[in-house]
């Protein structure tokens, strides 16, 4: 290894400015401006970024796996509580959010495709639609949360809904006739808020990143040759979508 | 291989202990020999192959057989170890049919024992020799771990579930109990003692649980109970500030309560405070939560007698 390279050169005295005659110092030989100095080829940079993103998504999955495991365990411990509590969720809202997110995943994929084809305006358009879908998702989520707050369907010790053989006796005022939920229903809502809450944070982060990509796209940073950031944000968005695909049936649908 | 007074292990006080110790010494001698061989080879190489001018290291060849042998050879050994360990574990874990059941409740920071007849004692338990005992563990606050080194056995007392261990004491005398799972400030003070006695003495002990020890005045017995029930971890007798009100000058005093009312400290109040501590909480002591204590009337009377002496 290295015989050609290494110890040929002791550190030069500081301030010595001489690049002339040394190979490789001139910029055009290295490649386009978006190619970082430590990469040799665009393909290498793209592959590294993509691999890094996949590794990051793997850790995202394991992050969520914790709450999924908790869900599975408590569902098997307290099946009536989970069944009863899940009926308190609005399936129509959940289903519409699922459709919104699925559609946004498609637009995210289309923004990558447009970017690959070098269609700047189209890329921006698809990104804007994706962001809009993300906002719609959050608005629907807001109304869902609002309903839960009013009904006292809150996590853990803030749970204010009447339950059978209640751990929490207090019934909030103005709730004359509400059906009692099975005991331990508060754990379902703990998990509901934790799972959907962490997911919503991911949606919000996604919106922020997509705005940033939108801005970079508008300033013409991307091209047929260089569309890595668009690709990566779309990958991330697909993961956010994927998680929801699991959350929706687990929380809303199955009895 | 195992001497009864092994330097590395505590005294064997139960049926399963010897088996565990044999296994321990087996792994120990294996480890000693293994380490000695590794160190000997290392020292040999350091001396024999120290760097000398003109002598080069021999390039590394391939010896697949050797690699495979020392990669997969140890599998046989560890399979044997696993088998032995599991066998002894299961053997010790199964309670005998006729085991006496003792309920053990871990609390910050004492052990409460309940005999089959309902008698309760704190931090001290008396059991008959050669009688299999099954300890049913639980906890009301945090996780504790019931550890009896003389029996080579421990198990966590987890809030919300029951666990158990069992062993048969084989020696008259005392068995130390530790709490082995960290449980807060006085974790290291959560010690109990199991007294192993003859069956006759055990019966005597059960019969006398609510009687003052012979030749002791009630207030002397009360002073003993004050320590034995760990009252001293929260209530001082010299007026110094602790998590609970001091007992000095408490008797007969008009105590103001957290809810604003007042109460005179008399027999009824003391009894209620021991059996249902949360019923009337003295002002300024709302943060510390005293657990309920189950004491016999005679014991409460003795404590009251003791309290009266603390003027």
């Amino acid at each position, binding site marked *: 290894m290295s015989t050609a390279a290494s110890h040929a050169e002791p550190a030069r005295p500081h301030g010595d400015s001489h690049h002339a005659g040394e190979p490789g110092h001139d910029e055009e030989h290295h490649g386009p401006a978006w190619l970082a100095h430590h990469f040799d080829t665009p393909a290498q940079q793209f592959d590294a970024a993509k691999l890094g993103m996949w590794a990051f998504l793997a850790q995202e999955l394991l992050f969520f796996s914790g709450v999924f495991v908790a869900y599975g365990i408590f569902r098997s411990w307290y099946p009536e509580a989970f069944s009863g509590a899940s009926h308190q969720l609005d399936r129509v809202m959940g289903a519409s959010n699922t459709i919104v997110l699925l559609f946004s995943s498609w637009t995210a994929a289309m923004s990558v495709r447009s970017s690959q084809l070098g269609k700047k305006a189209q890329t921006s358009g698809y990104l804007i639609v994706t962001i809009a879908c993300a906002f719609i998702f959050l608005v629907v989520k807001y109304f869902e949360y609002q309903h839960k707050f009013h009904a006292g369907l809150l996590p853990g010790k803030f749970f204010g809904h009447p339950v059978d053989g209640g751990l929490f006796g207090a019934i909030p005022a103005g709730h004359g006739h509400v059906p009692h939920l099975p005991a331990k229903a508060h754990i379902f809502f703990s998990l509901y808020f934790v799972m959907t809450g962490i997911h919503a944070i991911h949606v919000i982060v996604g919106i922020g990143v997509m705005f940033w990509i939108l801005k970079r796209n508008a300033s013409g940073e991307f091209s047929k040759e260089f569309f890595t950031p668009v690709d990566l944000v779309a990958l991330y968005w697909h993961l956010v979508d994927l998680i929801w695909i699991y959350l929706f049936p687990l929380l809303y649908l199955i009895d | 291989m195992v001497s009864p007074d092994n330097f590395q292990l505590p005294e064997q006080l139960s049926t399963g202990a010897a088996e565990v110790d044999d296994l321990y010494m087996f792994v120990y001698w294996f480890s000693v020999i293994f380490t000695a061989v590794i160190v000997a080879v290392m020292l040999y190489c350091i001396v024999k192959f120290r760097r000398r001018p003109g002598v080069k290291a021999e390039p590394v060849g391939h010896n697949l057989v050797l690699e495979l042998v020392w990669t997969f050879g140890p599998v046989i050994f560890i399979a044997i170890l696993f088998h032995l360990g599991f066998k002894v574990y299961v053997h010790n*874990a199964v309670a005998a049919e006729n085991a006496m059941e003792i309920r053990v409740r871990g609390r910050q920071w004492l052990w409460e024992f309940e005999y089959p007849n309902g008698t309760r004692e704190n931090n001290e338990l008396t059991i008959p020799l050669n009688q299999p005992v099954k300890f049913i563990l639980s906890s009301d606050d945090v996780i504790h771990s019931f550890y009896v080194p003389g029996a080579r056995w421990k198990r966590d007392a987890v809030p919300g579930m029951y666990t158990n261990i069992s062993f048969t004491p084989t020696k008259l005398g005392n068995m130390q109990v530790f709490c*082995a799972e960290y449980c807060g400030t006085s974790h290291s003070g959560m010690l109990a003692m199991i007294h192993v006695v003859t069956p006759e003495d055990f019966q005597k002990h059960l019969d006398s649980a609510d009687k003052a020890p012979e030749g002791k005045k009630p207030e002397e017995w009360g002073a003993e109970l004050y320590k034995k029930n760990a009252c001293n971890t929260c209530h001082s007798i010299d007026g110094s500030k602790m998590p609970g009100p001091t007992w000095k000058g408490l008797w007969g005093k008009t105590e103001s309560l957290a809810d604003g009312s007042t109460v005179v400290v008399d027999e009824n109040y003391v009894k209620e405070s021991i059996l249902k501590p949360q019923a009337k909480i003295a002002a300024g002591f709302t943060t510390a939560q005293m657990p309920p204590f189950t004491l016999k009337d005679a014991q409460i009377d003795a404590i009251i007698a003791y309290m009266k002496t603390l003027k």
Partner: protein
Amino acid sequence: MGAATTTVPRAQAHHPDPNENYLKAERGIMSWIYTLDHKRIGVMYLVSVLLAFLIGGIFALAVRLELFSRGKTIMDADAYNRTFTLHGVVMVFLFIIPSVPAALGNFILPIQLGAKDVAFPRLNLMSYYIYVFGACFALYSMVNGAVDTGWTFYTPYSMRTTSAVIPMVLGAFIMGFSSILTGVNFIATVHKLRAPGQTWTKLPLFIWGLYATSIIQVLATPVLAITLLLLCLERFLGLGIFDPKLGGDPVLFQHFFWFYSHPAVYIMIVPGMAVVNEIIATFSRRAIVGYMFVAMSSLALALLGFLVWGHHLFVSGMSEYATMVFSALTFLVAIPSGVKVFNWVATLYKGSIRLESPMLYALSFIFLFTIGGLTGLFLGVLAIDVHLHDTYFVVAHFHYVMVGGTVMGFVGGLHYWWPKITGKLFNEGVAKVAWALVFIGFNVTFIAQFIMGSRGMPRRYYDYLPEYEIFHKVSTIGSWILGLGFLTMAVMFVASLIKGQKSTRNPWGSAALEWQTPTPPPLANFIKVPTITRGPYDYHLATEEELSEK
């Protein structure tokens, strides 16, 4: 890769000279704060983890001093409980986990690959600041009453205590992301930034170790993150997941916690082993025997690490079947560990051995890790574990692995790469004295703990019965010798910085790639991108000039 097109990074008029020594290429504090150079980030990590080691070490000495005599020696029970917790938290999250990968690895890994930097330099800098940010939370907790739960934060005690649990847990949560991002960065770097000719079978074993570590960091740490998040929420909102009063399960917390924290043990030890490979090869002038077996044993440890968490719960009321399965799986860990020890010893045989200070640490690693591993066998055997669990035997066991293993590896690596990082030599005589003190002090401290542990002394005890006093006394005296050793070492390193001789390119005469570039390395790591034609340990293929210590 065409030599002419890619050898040196773009240099523009205002850019620093890539061929200049990385310490001098740019000047001023801002050039450090905003640096994207993996070497400078490595140095910043190094300073941070050494500081954490100092703080954690002071806590350790305080704990030992308190236990010197029965009853109160220097502090009360609450202060003691906070001190041993802080010792654990600081050592685990602030020191050991980032020590080898983030500090030494950051500096050495790209150079050993023949790369100019890690794959994502900005992410690398961000990881460092996330680490600092998390450390600030830990510090905030420390000055606001600290934590008295033990570093494991077991519920429900961590729900009930009034100490500053939330900032400390958030600190660990945040530092976890630093660890994850470093892992992501290293994985991409190893896969995509190897120099021409640097094939997987020519990778230094240090890289293999860090690669295995990175996989664990990426896959295990997020589980800790969600666990700690749930713990915080449980305290805030009373979720009812871990708190039995609300219908939760405290044992579930232990499962979650150890699903990360057991693999985390391999995040700590595998990099230590990785360093030892490099040192043994260099000071034996010989390739590590069974290269592929040693490389794969790192990956095997990474994989097995995910399957054995249950052995921390043998006495927690888990079912007997689960106990059996976890015991069996735990024994499998002995296989890759044994493979490493056998191959290291075989490497010494017919080598050309020189006992310089890094080698002394590497050899003590083998000895101490062997003891640490074998005492792990005791704990894997179910019947013995129920006796030894939560006693000082366990404390001594993991200190033999974590200090005897990881810290020896880290310190050995620090000695080994010190000339490359700082450009200065250190006083070898003083280094050997420091080593002797560390080695003796360590063994005195922890052998005493093995014996009191097997005799029944539970861990995390503020006070103890009279029969254990002699062991505690010996252990505390050992801790003073150990402390003196580290102090000597610190003085030696500071002296080297101030008035150490200038190091040559290759003071140890190593054939490995990082020793072939100038000392300290230029900003771009190499004057010219190397083409790898032989393995890092192929002493018989290396030229005289490459091995020259001049």
